[in-house]
C-alpha cells in the first residue's frame, strides 16, 4: 500500500505495537478504520481541546476499533505514550472498548447499535444550543443489523439533523463471517437513502476523499451518511479481508512482518 501521508504509517504502527504488546486482537477492525480516523482528526474535527464545550463530537460506535482511536488520540497529544503502553493492562483506562473517562472520548461504547442514537442527541443538543458544532458517528456495516440504528436513522432524518454525519466502516465482514452471508445489508446505500439520508460512497482508505466527504455540507436539511468502503486489516497483507483478524492477536513473526509491510520495508 502506498501511503500518501506519513501518519497512515504512524497510526498503523501504533495499533500493531499496542496489540502486540497486549497480546490482544481486534487489529483488523482498527486497521479498517485507521484512515477514517486520520481524515477526521487531521482534517475535519474541530476540537481545540477535549473539554471545550463547543468542540465537534465524535462517537466511535464500533467501540471494538478503539485501538485506532487511542492511536489517533495519542497523535493529537491527548493520550501520553506512557498511558498508551497500559493498553488492556490492569488498572488501565485503555480497554478494548473506549470509556468516556479518557480525554478525547465523548461517549463510552462497546455494545453495537448504541452510538448513533447518542450522536443524534448530541446533534439535537447542538441545534437547540444554536451551536455550529458538528457530530460524527462511526458505525460498522454489521452494526446496521441492529434495529436501534434504524430508530436513530429515522429520528435524525425526521428532526432534519443536517449537523450529523454517520460514517459506515463498510468492510463487508463481521465476527462470524461476511456480512452478505450473515445478514445481508444490501442495498445499503438505497436503504439509508430511503430513510431520508444524504448518502455518499467513498474509498475508505483515501484520506482526501474521506475528508472532502466529511467536511462538505449537504446543502439540504438531511443528515448525511458516508459509506466508506474499507478493507479489514488494511495495510497488512496477511490480515486483509480475513475474518480471523477480527479477533486474533499476532505472534512475534507476524508482528515483525506486519511492521515491515506497513513501513514499506523501512522498519
Amino acid at each position, binding site marked *: 500500500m502506498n501511503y500518501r501521508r506519513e501518519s497512515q504509517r504512524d497510526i498503523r504502527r501504533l495499533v500493531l505495537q499496542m496489540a502486540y504488546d497486549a497480546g490482544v486482537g481486534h487489529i483488523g477492525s482498527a486497521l479498517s478504520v485507521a484512515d477514517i480516523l486520520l481524515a477526521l482528526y487531521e482534517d475535519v474535527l474541530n476540537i481545540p481541546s477535549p473539554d471545550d*464545550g463547543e468542540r465537534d*463530537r465524535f462517537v466511535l460506535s464500533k467501540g471494538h476499533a478503539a485501538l485506532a482511536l487511542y492511536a489517533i488520540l495519542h497523535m493529537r497529544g491527548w493520550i501520553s505514550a506512557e498511558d498508551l503502553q497500559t493498553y488492556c493492562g490492569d488498572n488501565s483506562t485503555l480497554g478494548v472498548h473506549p470509556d*468516556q473517562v479518557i480525554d478525547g472520548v*465523548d*461517549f*463510552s*461504547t*462497546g*455494545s453495537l447499535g*448504541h452510538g448513533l*442514537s*447518542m*450522536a*443524534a*442527541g*448530541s*446533534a*439535537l*443538543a*447542538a441545534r*437547540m*444550543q444554536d451551536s455550529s458544532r458538528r457530530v460524527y458517528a462511526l458505525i460498522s456495516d454489521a452494526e446496521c443489523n441492529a434495529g*436501534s440504528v434504524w*430508530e*436513530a436513522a*429515522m*429520528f435524525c432524518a*425526521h428532526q432534519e439533523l443536517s449537523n450529523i454525519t454517520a460514517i459506515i466502516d463498510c468492510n463487508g465482514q463481521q465476527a462470524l463471517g461476511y456480512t452478505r452471508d450473515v445478514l445481508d445489508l444490501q442495498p445499503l446505500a438505497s436503504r439509508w437513502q430511503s430513510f431520508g439520508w444524504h448518502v455518499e460512497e467513498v474509498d475508505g482508505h483515501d484520506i482526501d476523499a474521506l475528508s472532502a466527504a466529511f467536511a462538505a455540507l449537504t446543502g439540504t436539511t438531511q443528515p448525511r451518511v458516508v459509506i466508506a468502503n474499507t478493507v479489514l486489516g488494511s495495510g497488512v497483507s496477511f490480515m486483509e479481508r480475513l475474518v480471523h483478524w477480527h479477533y486474533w492477536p499476532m505472534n512475534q513473526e507476524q508482528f515483525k512482518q506486519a511492521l515491515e509491510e506497513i513501513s514499506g520495508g523501512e522498519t
Partner: protein
Amino acid sequence: MRKAFINTLVELSERDERILLVAVDLGYTVVEPYQKAFPGRFVNPGVCEQNAVAMATGLAEAGFIPFVYSIAPFATARPYEFIRNGPALHQSAVRMVGVGGGFEYGPAGPTHFGIDDVGLMRLLTGTTIVTPADAAQAQSALRATWDLQGPVYYRLGKDDTYELPGLEGAFKLGSAQCLREGKDVCLISLGALARESEDACLVLEADGVQAGHILISSVEPFPAEMVIDKIAGVSLVVVAEAHVQAGGIGERIGTIIAENGLSCKLLRCNAGREWDGRSGSNMYCLERDGLTGTAIAAAIKDTLQSKNA
C-alpha cells in the same frame, strides 16, 4: 401524580432552561401543558425507547437535563441496556419517568405492569430511585432531585387526587417518612402502595394490633439507618410493595435485618403471582396478589397468630 409531576416540571423549566421533556409517544392529556409551555424543549421521538434514552444521553452530555417519559416497563425494561450503558455508565443527568408503577395499567395486561421496574433500576449503580406515594410527594420529590448529577428513575402513579394521610407532601432524599408509630408490628411500604398499607393499619387497629408504618419513597439512596432505628425491638416487620420479590425493597430490608443481626420476623407482601392470563383493574390485581389493605392486614394477623401459637 403524573399531572402534578408534569406541572412541577413546567415550573422548574421556567427557572432552568436545561430541562427538556422527551415523551416517548405516550402521555396523552398529561404532557400537553409542557408541550404548550415549551414547544422547543419538548421532543417526541416516536415509539423508540432505546433511541429516546440514548439520544437523551447525548443531550445530557451537552448539558441538558432530559426527562424521558413513558409507561413504567417501557421506561425501564424496554431500553434497559441503553440505560445501563448510557446514563448509568456515563453518570449523566438523564431522568427516566415511568408511569403506572404496580398494576395501574391493570386492564392493559402484563406487558404494561410496572412490577419489576424498581428492581431493574436498583441493579444500575449510581441511579437514584424515587417512588412517590401521592401527587404532593411527587411534586416535592421532583423539586428535591431534578438537578442531581447522575441518573434518576421516577416511578409515578396515575392518581392525581389522592392524598396520603399524614404525609403532606414530605420528601427527603435518602430518608423515609414515618406515618404512624406502633409497637406490635412495623409495616414498610413502597411508594403508592402505602395507601393500602394505611388501610391495613386501620383494620389492625380495630383488632387491637398497634402497627407502625414507614413509607419508602427514596429507594436509592435507601434510608437504611432510619429503617434500622424503626424496626429495632419490633418482633414482626412487614414489607408491602407492588413489585415482585426479586429486586424489591423487601429484599433490601431482609438484608439489613440479617447484616445487622436484628431479631425479628420478616413478612413480605409482593406482586408477581404466576400469570394466569387474566387481567383487570388495579384493585383486582392487588386483590389477586394479596396487596389490598384487607389482605395485608389478614396476612399480618395470620403471622402474629402463628408466632404466638
